[in-house]
């Protein structure tokens, strides 16, 4: 003790323990650590919720049948169980209720039912209860009783009818494909041709109006001839289609619900049927993956709340790629001028500030600009000059994937400019000098030395731009995204890329299904699944860019970095 007092350290003896702690900086480490921890926790929580709710959606659950004390019977998947809030009597034993997904919207009017556990008299898992996915009204939860083709009975009783059902579902899928083949493929092609003939006629009319002396009757006759042939072919196909539909529609299955109600369903409308309580784990997994595949590759039905999201995936990816193709070259060229050619003065500083601030403008403002400038001004002019025959129906004068991509490119170009400028500035001076010293011009130096060395940094800009662009919804809603697009922007008809077409987008799909659909509660899992998919696509797109960047980095690694 005395020895210690003999050699006092300056400050150490006077500082309080708290002060010493602060000086050592331990709390600062805790602060920074916990800030990072909270961030990670929030991200992990978000991903976990989306992951479980999104992926759990496709898993076929068991069907619980409950008989209530008042005699009513319900069959459904248990969605959740919760305590009934009873603020008046907090001391009482807590009561619970379960939420059943009972389906059968056409019979009950709602997909879900809350049931107090106290009201349940009996409950069980009936083996012959089926979960049937169909074209309309959500799932049907019932037992098949009768299969009829026309007036002929094919199967009677739950057992026999259930056995037939698998075959009927497969047949329905084949029939639907055949119908769609005729409708979208063959009749679609004829329609396309008829529309083109109509436009040619219109063009001739416009020509005749402009030049009154010109004789267009010969050309008219040729077109009319072709139109008549096409019309005849169209009628033939239409008859063929009606035949196929009639043949496929003759088979009916009658179901009996748990409550005893009868429901007759056309076999053509069956999408999937399985005895939920009989399934082995393996069979469940197969259904799970079949549903997942349908989700990824199928077309939406039931106003987007069921079926797949393939058109939305396609639209999202195509739009992001188009956006990148426009934003990156533009941004890099602009950054090159700012960094390499412009005199670094007040003006350039102002431009740089403006570019940075552009990244902070609300996206809807860009959307409005896109609508006003790209669609009405540019698109309207294109229509007047090149597509006057189809007016008043606009071609480019209305929202489309081109304008949406351009609007998003405008939105993301500041990000690219900033990143590219930083990348260009990071190219070491010594490398440029080495190039100049061998007699290279500035242009050659930029092209052969500076740009390759800056490529990884430029790709970082692309990654940021894609992440921002893929998640943006607001500007798209007014520049070309629709709830349901009948055709993809890429198909087999010349010119293959139809940049004027409207498209579907996963972000808008989330909004539409989650908030605009007639049956929000039933569509909720779909929202999660779509969100998960959008996240995955953004990650995948970014991962691709990151892989490319890492390869470039390895290639252009310099001793200065």
């Amino acid at each position, binding site marked *: 003790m005395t020895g210690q007092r003999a050699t006092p350290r300056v400050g150490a003896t006077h500082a309080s323990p708290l002060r010493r702690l602060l000086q050592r900086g331990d709390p600062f480490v805790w602060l920074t650590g916990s800030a990072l921890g909270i961030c990670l926790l929030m991200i992990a929580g978000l991903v976990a919720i989306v992951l479980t709710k999104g992926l759990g959606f496709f898993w076929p659950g068991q069907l619980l049948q409950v008989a209530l004390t008042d005699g009513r019977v319900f069959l459904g998947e248990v969605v959740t169980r919760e305590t009934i809030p009873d603020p008046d009597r907090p001391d009482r034993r807590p009561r619970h209720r379960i939420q059943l997904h009972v389906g059968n919207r056409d019979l009950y009017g709602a997909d879900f039912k809350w049931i107090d556990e106290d009201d349940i008299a009996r409950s069980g898992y009936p083996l012959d209860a089926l979960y049937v996915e169909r074209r309309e009204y959500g799932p049907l939860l019932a037992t098949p009783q009768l299969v009829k083709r026309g007036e002929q009975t094919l199967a009677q009783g739950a057992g026999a009818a259930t056995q037939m059902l698998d075959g009927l579902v497969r047949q329905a899928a084949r029939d639907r494909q055949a119908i769609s083949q005729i409708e979208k493929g063959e009749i679609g092609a004829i329609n396309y041709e008829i529309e083109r003939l109509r436009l040619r006629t219109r063009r001739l009319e416009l020509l005749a109006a402009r030049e009154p002396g010109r004789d267009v009757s010969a050309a008219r006759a040729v077109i009319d001839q072709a139109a008549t042939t096409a019309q005849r072919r169209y009628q033939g196909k239409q008859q063929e289609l009606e035949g196929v539909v009639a043949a496929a529609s003759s088979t009916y299955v009658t179901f009996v619900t748990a409550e005893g109600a009868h429901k007759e369903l056309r076999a053509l409308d069956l999408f999937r049927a399985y005895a939920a309580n009989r399934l082995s784990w393996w069979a469940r997994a197969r259904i799970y993956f079949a549903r997942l595949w349908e989700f990824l590759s199928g077309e939406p039905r039931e106003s987007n709340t069921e079926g797949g999201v393939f058109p939305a995936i396609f639209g999202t990816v195509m739009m992001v790629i188009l956006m990148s193709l426009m934003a990156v070259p533009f941004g890099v060229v602009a950054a090159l001028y700012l960094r390499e050619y412009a005199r670094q003065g007040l003006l350039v500083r102002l431009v740089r500030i403006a570019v940075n601030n552009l990244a902070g403008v609300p996206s809807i403002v860009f959307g409005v600009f896109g609508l006003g400038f790209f669609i009405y001004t540019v698109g309207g002019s294109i229509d007047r000059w090149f597509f006057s025959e189809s007016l008043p129906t606009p071609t480019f004068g209305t929202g489309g994937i081109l304008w949406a991509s351009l609007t998003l490119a405008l939105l993301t170009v500041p990000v690219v400019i900033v990143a590219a400028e930083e990348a260009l500035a990071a190219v070491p001076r*010594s490398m440029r000098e*080495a*190039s100049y*010293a*061998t*007699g290279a011009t500035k242009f050659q130096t930029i092209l052969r030395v500076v740009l390759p060395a800056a490529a990884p940094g430029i790709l970082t800009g692309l990654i940021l731009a894609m992440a921002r662009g893929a998640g943006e919804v607001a500007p798209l809603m007014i520049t070309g995204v629709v709830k349901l697009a009948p055709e993809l922007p890429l198909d087999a008809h010349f010119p293959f890329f139809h940049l004027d077409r409207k498209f579907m987008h996963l972000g808008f799909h989330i909004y539409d299904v989650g908030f605009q659909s007639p049956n929000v509660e039933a569509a909720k899992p779909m929202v999660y699944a779509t969100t998960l998919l959008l996240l995955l696509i953004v990650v995948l797109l970014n991962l691709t860019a990151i892989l490319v960047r890492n390869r470039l980095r390895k*290639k*252009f*690694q310099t001793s200065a970095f």
Partner: protein
Amino acid sequence: MPPHAPALAAPPDSKDVRIHTAVRPRDTPREAALNAIELREVNLSYGENHVLHDITMDIGEKQVTAFIGPSGCGKSTLLRCLNRMNDLIDGVRVSGGVKVKGQDLYAPDTDVIEVRRRVGMVFQKSNPFPKSIYENVVYGLRIAGIRDRSTLDEACERSLRAAALWDEVKDRLDESGLSLSGGQQQRLCIARAIAVEPEIVLMDEPCSALDPIATLKIEELIYSLKERYTIVTVTHNLQQAARVSDMTAFFWLGKLIEYGKTPEVFTRPGEKLTEDYITGRFG
């Protein structure tokens, strides 16, 4: 004023005398040597900062000339005047005459690209491009628009041999130039500089980032390159200047203080400043 060196002891303000003594050292190593570079009253300033004052000197052909002096004395800046590298810096003004083989570098109609092709440069820090060894060497030729593969191959081998690097890299020309060691990288940069067949090679402290063995190799290389090229080198290493150079110029505060044959400058410096510097009293 040291009395034992009357030839170089001209007062700084009497330019005529100084030019006379500095420009024509009494006996140059090769009598036939012409002047590769002629500097006449070169002044250079960065904005308000006057860096070089009235530099007048002649640099002999196929000789090694070393610029020495303390940091910030302007020797690197002067070196960069010789291939107009200073053009890359904003706000640089140069006046006076710089002639390379009779061509005025700063004349309005001078093609800077052509100048840099004739006057190559090697930098303090080795700066190979992040490309293959082969592409590094032929960079200047590609820039000049040469596409013929055999011409490029030949130039690559010739330059690498001249830079004493061929035997070490001939089996891995496709590997990145950055995979080489520091000394090899610097020799690669020399090969790149001489691939375009310049008349003059400027070296800005080419060994300052290298270890003694790599330095020795570069010095030997400089010695052998003298056969074909005029070399001007800036160095902080006085022993190196003494070893490799034929002529030595001592700069101080942007002024050329003394210029003469290397042995004389080092053994019998004409100026007190030079003596103080080379004996290590400052700098």
